[in-house]
Every structure is written in structure tokens, then in C-alpha cells.
């Protein structure tokens, strides 16, 4: 009933020092449901076999079946998206420092242990989703990373509040934003460093943390060990990995990754017609509301009788209020039953049942609503950002 990805001969992951010769071994592939969807599956260090979008910079997609296993996405299955080809692969946590500088009274460098011992640890359950998740389903298609729906995951992040750290170094009057940079580096010196910034009021939100743990363990190196910015409710582009430089700004950030990249049309739903030009743009920020069916995949064969459909839903932090389920291709909807509330930034599970009649086909769909009344919408923009259309799954019932 569920699509599974079985891989023989993957390299074992033992401890923290990992050699990984997997690409030299026999190649496993998967075909995602769009033209050009052929992908290799490979076990990168500290990861189970994942869908390889690109090998340099490293971008790995989580197979959809993983999302049926629970609200939290295991660290070894969590998607990976770096922007630049040279990423830290040898990290000595004892030597690691994160620097806070710029418009602050006391520029300071903190060691990892100082962060863990001098500041209160907090946990937040939050979905990390790439701005371009599901881009490959844009119609018409758009250039960019051709993700299916696996550039997302949910984790319990542990770290310290950014605002506690900022209070320590004392931002000066006139501070308006905070810029973040990690240890990834371009191949060419002229390529812009990957930097993202948040307005000061967002950066000082108590839910924004510098995380040193994910689901109870150190972050995988590919997910930003030893320290990563967590911005619950915001797209993953802001969640800077291998974070080691924080700069308080008194002017708006005009670096490439804010001024040019990761922008969406300044229109309702960030949506335009493919022929539109000349529209203003704004930086992408909050996640859009989404839901997915997780226990059946498109083309699945069901057995007749009462059938339980499971799924997940999430939004940008208002909280999922309800999920509708349809077994007739979105013509009619009924309320699904919501699972445990693990926090307003978390995946929330849902279930619904329907009577699968022998020999029939069904087009299943789910549609989430958040506490602000927002629902999933069809949208199109030239970068394929923030997709949150209602997804449908076609199933056939045996005789």
C-alpha cells in the first residue's frame, strides 16, 4: 500500500567519523512523478538512502513514505539543502565559535559549551520546509531545484533563544535587523556568501533559537552541525546551517540572498500569471498551509472495505484548525480527525476513513485550514516558491 524504498548494501553509520563510498557502489534509482524525475538514491554520511537532487552543492530529498512514520522526521531521513559547494566536513566542537558583531555594545565570541551552559535551553517542535519544496509540480514548469514534496521535515529542536544572546551583547539604538552566515563557502571568491537576515522584531521572537540538537541528538553534519538557526514558521532559507557569524545591522540588508534571491511577487498569494512581468517582489517569509496524505501513494491498490487514510498538516504558526478529506476528487469534504497537538509550528497528524467499494477508483484529497481561516490555494510564480495546492492521490480498489 505504501511506496517503500529498499536499498541493499548501504554503508553503515557508526559513531561520528564516517567514510562513505556509496556512490561507487551499485546505483539505486527512483522516478518521481514528473518528466525528468529520475533520481539516484544514495546514503550520504549520517543519512539513510535519500533521493539525490544534486550532489554538489549537496541537496537530498526525503522519500515520501517517511512522513507516514510519525510526526517527527528522523535525523537520518531529514532533507538536505546547501547553497554553496564547499561545506564544513571536519568540525571540532571544542574549537567552534559563533561571533556576534556589528551594531552591538559588546561584540562577543561564544564557544559551543558556553551557549549550552550560560543560557537556558529551550525546545521547539517546528517544521523546516524549503521555499522550493514541490517546485517540480509547478505548471508550467519553472527552472530551479526540482523537488517533489520531500524538501520538508519536522523535528524537536533544542537550543538557546537568540534574544537571550542578543541581550548579552546589547544591540545599539538604531539596530533594525540581524544577519546570519554559516560556514559554507562558494567555489569562486566572487560568488556571494550565503547570508540571510531577519528584522529585529522577528529575530527577538522567543521561538527563534540557535539549535545544537535535533530530535534529541546532535545535528547531522549535513543539517548544520554544530549550530543552526531555527525560525519556526519561516521558510528554511532563513534557517542558516553551521551558523558561526551573527551581525546586527542598522540598514536593510542588501546582500544577494535577500535583495535578489528568495523573493516572491508582491501580489495576493504571491501568485502571478506566467505571462506577467514587471511586478514588485518581496522577500519570502512565512510557510503556507499544507496537508498531505501519507499512507497511500498515487496509483496505490486498495482492498475493499472501511479504509483509514492518514496524513500530516502544518502551517506558518497560526496552527492547523482542521483538515478536510475528500474521496471524490474535491467535490465534497468531511472533517478528518486531528492527532495530538505538538505545538503550532509542528506537523499535525490526521486520519479519515472511507468505504472503499470493490472495483472502483477514487481520487483522494486533503485540505487544511489554519486558525486564521487560511486554506491551501493554487498559485504560480516564476520561482515555484511556497506551493501549497491541494494534492490528490488516485487509488484503485480491488474486486
Amino acid at each position, binding site marked *: 500500500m505504501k511506496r517503500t524504498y529498499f536499498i541493499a548494501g548501504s554503508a553503515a553509520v557508526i559513531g561520528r*567519523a564516517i567514510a562513505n563510498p*556509496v556512490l561507487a557502489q551499485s546505483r539505486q534509482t527512483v522516478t518521481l512523478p514528473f518528466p525528468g524525475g529520475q533520481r539516484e538514491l544514495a546514503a*550520504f554520511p549520517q543519512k539513510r538512502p535519500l533521493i539525490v537532487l544534486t550532489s554538489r552543492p549537496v541537496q537530498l530529498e526525503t522519500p515520501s513514505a517517511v512522513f507516514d512514520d510519525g510526526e517527527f522526521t528522523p535525523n537520518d531521513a531529514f532533507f538536505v539543502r546547501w547553497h554553496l559547494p564547499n561545506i564544513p566536513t571536519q568540525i571540532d566542537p571544542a574549537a567552534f565559535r559563533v561571533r556576534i558583531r556589528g551594531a552591538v555594545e559588546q561584540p562577543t565570541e561564544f564557544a559551543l559549551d558556553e551557549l549550552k551552559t550560560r543560557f537556558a535551553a529551550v525546545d521547539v517542535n517546528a517544521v523546516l520546509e524549503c521555499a522550493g519544496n514541490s517546485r517540480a509540480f509547478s505548471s508550467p*514548469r519553472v527552472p530551479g531545484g526540482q523537488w517533489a514534496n520531500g524538501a520538508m521535515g519536522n523535528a524537536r529542536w533544542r537550543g538557546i533563544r537568540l534574544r537571550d544572546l542578543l541581550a548579552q551583547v546589547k544591540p545599539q539604538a538604531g539596530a533594525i535587523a540581524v544577519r546570519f552566515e554559516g560556514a559554507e563557502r562558494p567555489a569562486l571568491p566572487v560568488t556571494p556568501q550565503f547570508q540571510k537576515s531577519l528584522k529585529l522584531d522577528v529575530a527577538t521572537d522567543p521561538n527563534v533559537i540557535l539549535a545544537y540538537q535535533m530530535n534529541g541528538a546532535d545535528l547531522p553534519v549535513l543539517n548544520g552541525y554544530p549550530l543552526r538557526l531555527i525560525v519556526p514558521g519561516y521558510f528554511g532559507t532563513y534557517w542558516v546551517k553551521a551558523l558561526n557569524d551573527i551581525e546586527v545591522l542598522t540598514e536593510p540588508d542588501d546582500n544577494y540572498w535577500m535583495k535578489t534571491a528568495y523573493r516572491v511577487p508582491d501580489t495576493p498569494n504571491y501568485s502571478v500569471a506566467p505571462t506577467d512581468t514587471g511586478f514588485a517582489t518581496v522577500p519570502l517569509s512565512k510557510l503556507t498551509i499544507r496537508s498531505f496524505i501519507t499512507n497511500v501513494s498515487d496509483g496505490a491498490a486498495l482492498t475493499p472495505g472501511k479504509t483509514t487514510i492518514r496524513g500530516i498538516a502544518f502551517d506558518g504558526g497560526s496552527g492547523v484548525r482542521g483538515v478536510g478529506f475528500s474521496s471524490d476528487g474535491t467535490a465534497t469534504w468531511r472533517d478528518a480527525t486531528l492527532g495530538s497537538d505538538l505545538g503550532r509550528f509542528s506537523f499535525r497528524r490526521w486520519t479519515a476513513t472511507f468505504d472503499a467499494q470493490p472495483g472502483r477508483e477514487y481520487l483522494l484529497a486533503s485540505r487544511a485550514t489554519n486558525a486564521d481561516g487560511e486554506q491551501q490555494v493554487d498559485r504560480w510564480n516564476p520561482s515555484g516558491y511556497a506551493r501549497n495546492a491541494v494534492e490528490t492521490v488516485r487509488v484503485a480498489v480491488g474486486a
Partner: protein
Amino acid sequence: MRRLLPLRGVILTALIATASLGARRDAPAAETPAAITLPAQNTNFRPAPGIEIARRDCLSCHSAEYVTSQPPLSKAAWTKEIAKMRTAFGATIPDADTDGLVAYLLAQNVTPPK
């Protein structure tokens, strides 16, 4: 069937890390350095005339899947991508290579653009 032996190692590591958390708060345990080795980048562009230009001009910054995973793009769209590599990322693609690179990128499209 997906839960195979390699995963057990990770879970065990996670459990050990969780179990030691209580002790770590006051007296941090010595952290051990992390070291990973990444697989080599994929250089498998699709065969088409001009493939040597793609190998020469693209692989210094990104692997071949950046090209091979794209949907079929028009000539204008591929030309725009090359311009973006130059202006946004500083790629040193010689002017003399432009026409040949566009022709290659079009020729290697999975299916022809509409």
C-alpha cells in the same frame, strides 16, 4: 523493510546522546570532532554535442544534476540561466562558449520544450 541495521546504529547513538543530556547541563561532556567524507560530485551530463563545454564551464561550481534534473527549458530560459550564473554567481564562462553551451543545454533536454 526500511528499518535495516544501519539505522539501528543511529538510533543507538541518539539514545546515548539523550541519556547523557541530564549530566551535560552542568558539566559539558567533552565533544568529539565530527568528520564526514562526501561522495564525489556527479559529472554525468547527458551525451549531446557540446558536452565538453558543459564539463568545462559548469562543474567548478556545481554537479551535473543541476542541469540534468531541470525540466525541458526553452532557449530563452537556458540563456537566462547562463546569464544568472555569470551575473549573480560570477561564473567565468567565456563569451565564446555561450552559443555552444546554449545549444548543448537545449539538446540535452529530456523532452523538447513546448
